[in-house]
């Protein structure tokens, strides 16, 4: 109970506007410490903290320390980021064949999409309230219409078509967002070095797994009882071999992912003075996720070619048969959704370290 009460108090404090966060955290932790002396249970103190966090008027600048316009912007960004991320995951799940196509992982992603959607709803209501409080009812109506349009795209299943047709401009758009919206705290050198190792390694590993899925696992799963040489001989006989053959796709994918990784490492580590303030933690995270999502998308190209070739040569379906296909698709979806969240959602930072707590 003690640990749970302290956890609840910390969560409650963390949810508060930055201006009052440290003060209330210290106050409530001190109340937990003295609860017995006051004849109050620690659970009761935790409940009081959660009640305050829930009922605090975040629109009042006296409480949040933020002007209404800033509150509106932060909430609108949160609504857009969480809503788009939820939509991407929902559309991706639906386009691939629904939650059952991914097994237990699919259920997890569906829960995540629902949680993001709920967060988007809360943020939309908050943005609408802020717009109304600022005397901008037309803006409030536009926010609501935008949210309804997004829900409509997902529910009407038009989203899958938009995602496929708009994949290239969509990714270009995400890159733009990742570069423009991800200001904030500059990443330390230690973090930049760690990211420069982890991100390219993960991207290359994903590319390798993806290519093994496309050229080995999936063909064997689609045509049980046949060996790989027999499958490729059948493809060649039917004139359905992948353009250039697997070797070309492997080299091309390796080259492109390596170039992408090199660009990422260059941005993160090259001693260019002008880049010093651009290397924020959020930007490095968003670009790293984009590299991962882009890698999965890249692997989709030979995958599509192989899938159609096998379907035409052996009269099978064009979809994935190996579970690795679902895993890779989920990875790509989560990477793109993560990019959107990191780009859009901005949490107001607390006071810099070392500054005295507010009186």
């Amino acid at each position, binding site marked *: 109970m003690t640990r749970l009460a302290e956890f609840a108090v910390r969560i409650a404090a963390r949810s508060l506007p930055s201006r009052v966060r440290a003060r209330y955290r*210290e106050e409530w932790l001190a109340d937990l*410490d003295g609860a017995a002396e006051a004849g109050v249970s620690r659970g009761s103190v935790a409940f009081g903290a959660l*009640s305050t966090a829930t009922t605090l008027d975040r629109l009042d600048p006296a409480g949040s320390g933020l002007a209404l316009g800033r509150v509106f912007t932060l909430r609108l960004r949160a609504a857009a980021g969480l809503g788009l991320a939820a939509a991407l995951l929902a559309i991706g799940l639906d386009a691939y064949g629904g939650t059952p196509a991914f097994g237990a992982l699919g259920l997890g992603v569906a829960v995540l999409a629902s949680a993001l959607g709920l967060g988007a709803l809360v943020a939309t209501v908050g943005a609408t309230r802020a717009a109304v409080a600022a005397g901008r009812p037309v803006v409030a109506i536009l926010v609501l219409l935008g949210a309804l349009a997004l829900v409509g795209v997902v529910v009407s299943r038009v989203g899958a078509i938009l995602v496929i047709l708009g994949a290239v401009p969509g990714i270009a758009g995400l890159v733009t967002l990742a570069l423009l919206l991800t200001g904030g705290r500059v990443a330390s050198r230690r973090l930049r070095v760690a990211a420069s190792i982890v991100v390219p390694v993960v991207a290359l590993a994903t590319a390798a797994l993806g290519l093994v899925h496309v050229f080995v696992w999936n063909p064997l799963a689609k045509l049980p009882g046949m060996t790989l040489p027999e499958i490729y001989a059948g493809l060649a006989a039917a004139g359905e071999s992948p353009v250039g053959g697997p070797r070309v796709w492997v080299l091309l994918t390796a080259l492109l992912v390596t170039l992408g990784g090199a660009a990422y490492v260059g941005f993160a580590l090259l001693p260019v003075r002008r880049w010093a303030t651009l290397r924020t933690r959020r930007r490095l995270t968003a670009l790293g996720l984009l590299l991962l999502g882009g890698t999965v998308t890249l692997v989709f190209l030979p995958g599509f070619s192989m899938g159609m070739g096998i379907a035409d040569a052996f009269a099978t379906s064009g979809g994935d048969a190996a579970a690795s296909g679902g895993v890779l698709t989920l990875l790509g979806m989560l990477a793109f959704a993560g990019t959107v969240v990191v780009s859009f959602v901005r949490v107001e930072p607390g006071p810099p370290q070392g500054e005295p707590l507010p009186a």
Partner: protein
Amino acid sequence: MDPLSRMTPATLDVLAALLDESSPTWGLRLVGRTGRPTGSVYPILERLERAGWISSEWDDDPARTGPRRRLYRLTTDGAEAARSAVAGAAGSRASLRPGLAGA
């Protein structure tokens, strides 16, 4: 100081308890004084402070060990408004009693 959008019975109890204190008092002690749950008292204190009825400060008593506590007191304007509110509520209760007694 801003007027309160609502004056609930719990808010009146907190104001009355603060009026009874001659020095800044620990927030958790108000919970015991009023008999109200923390789920009511904590948000009330936050609202009162934001509206300027009360102010708060850290307890810097060197004689007491342990984490420092947050102490609350009524502001000058807040004390005046609190007295009016509490007196007004007491008057309303008194005017209701003869009616109830006669029912």
